[in-house]
């Protein structure tokens, strides 16, 4: 790897976030390099979601700094737009637009944000539907697709905007067990292609296979961040050990 690959594409510096009196994030420091795959785990309510939602400004951090590809995320619309262009996101509940077919879900932002011509947008969208192995579902509405198919469309929708970083917020938690692997397979392919990814998941098998580093969060803090093997074999804190015992 050359030097530019080593530069962090995402930097969080002392990020804090409050919901009223409740402090959801306590001085979060995190750096993610280009091409790095980070899995975030921890008990529910530990701030995992809030942390990654701050990265594309779905939540506003109260203090600290967030940089995406060298640009600081401020309340300026220009910065927010620029960051969102670089960052794709996949949600637990898919959040596909229900009134649009699968391919139109992909084409909407291509046309409106990227200003791609319709015919070209259709071509790009089709290519990404093929990439998640469901080109034949292109003209179906989300309500006609299974959960696993919907989530793959959602992944394709984020990918076709050509983001530098992909955020996954528990992408398989809302799925029936038999559909989890089809989504994880797509994510594993993506990781193998070198996409920078931050993934919140409880799928520890996936984490072991794919992640470079694992972040363990509890009570709004990063308790531990380690390379994957070390994390599983040699966790430092008691809380991490307890969590791993419960989940493995």
């Amino acid at each position, binding site marked *: 790897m050359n030097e530019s690959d080593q530069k962090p594409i995402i930097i969080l510096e002392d990020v804090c976030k409050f919901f009223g009196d409740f402090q959801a994030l306590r001085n979060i420091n995190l750096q993610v390099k280009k091409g790095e795959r980070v899995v975030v785990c921890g008990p529910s309510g530990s701030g995992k979601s809030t942390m990654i939602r701050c990265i*594309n400004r779905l939540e506003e951090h109260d203090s600290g700094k967030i940089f995406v590809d060298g640009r600081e995320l401020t309340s300026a619309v220009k910065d927010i*737009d620029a960051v969102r262009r670089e960052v794709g996101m996949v949600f637990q509940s898919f*959040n*596909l637009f229900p009134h*649009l077919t699968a391919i139109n879900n992909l084409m*909407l932002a291509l046309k*409106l*944000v990227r200003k791609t011509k319709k015919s070209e947008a259709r071509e790009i969208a089709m290519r990404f539907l093929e990439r998640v192995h469901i080109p034949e579902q292109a003209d179906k509405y989300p309500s006609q697709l299974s959960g696993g198919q919907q989530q793959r469309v959602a992944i394709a929708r984020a990918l076709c905007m050509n983001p530098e970083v992909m955020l996954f917020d528990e992408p398989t938690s809302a799925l029936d067990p038999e559909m989890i692997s089809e989504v994880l397979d797509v994510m594993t392919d993506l990781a193998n292609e070198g996409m920078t990814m931050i993934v919140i998941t409880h799928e520890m098998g996936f984490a072991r296979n794919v992640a470079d580093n694992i972040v363990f969060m509890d009570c709004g803090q990063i308790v531990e961040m380690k390379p994957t093997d070390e994390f599983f074999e040699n966790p430092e804190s008691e809380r991490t050990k307890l969590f791993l015992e419960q989940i493995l």
Partner: protein
Amino acid sequence: MTFDIYLIFDSIPKMLAGIGMTLHLLFLSSFLGLILGIIILLMRISGRWYLSFPTFAYIYFFRGTPILVQIFVIYHGLPQFEAIRDSVFWPILREPFGCAILALTLNSGAYVSEILRGGYLGVDKGLHEAGKALGLSTPHRFIYVTTPIAVRLAIPAYSNDFISMLKATSLASTITLLEMTGVARTIVAQTFAPYEIFIAAAIIYLVMTWFLQRGFGLFEKRMSRYIKLSEA
């Protein structure tokens, strides 16, 4: 008292003379009311107090007073002000038709904005977030994501309001307009048969309502096709 069923059928064609005026009042004021309702909604959800505050007063006033009172205030009340008589609106407000349209529009705008607001509140928050994450601007999210879904959610309540508007147009007869009810009253004055004549009027209103219900039903079906399919 006698009841002449033939008089009902005889009077129906005559009464149809008023149907044009009824439909004119209904469609024009509903159309203007829809535009007004959208503007009021945008002001209300703008998050700026100086835009949203007036909408509360407006909606409160027009939902809280009878349409008949509103028509009287506009028709009998406004011309007393010289400023109104001197204004560019006078050619409209001088005519009973203009007054009726104004009253019905203002009334419909208040209800429609509330109906649409219900639709907007019903749109899943996750879809806003998905739109944001994709980089869609606020206007783009509003037009391409929220509105199509909100409109579908609002159709049943809107069709209800539209049918209420049909019936409200009859109040225009109180300020001399010869819409259906106005025509019916004229016929009653000639025949002294209020029972038959008003039943005939009721029949025509029912037929119109049936068509409106059907129209909205088809529209709702079309707007909901992405949901219907999943049930099939």
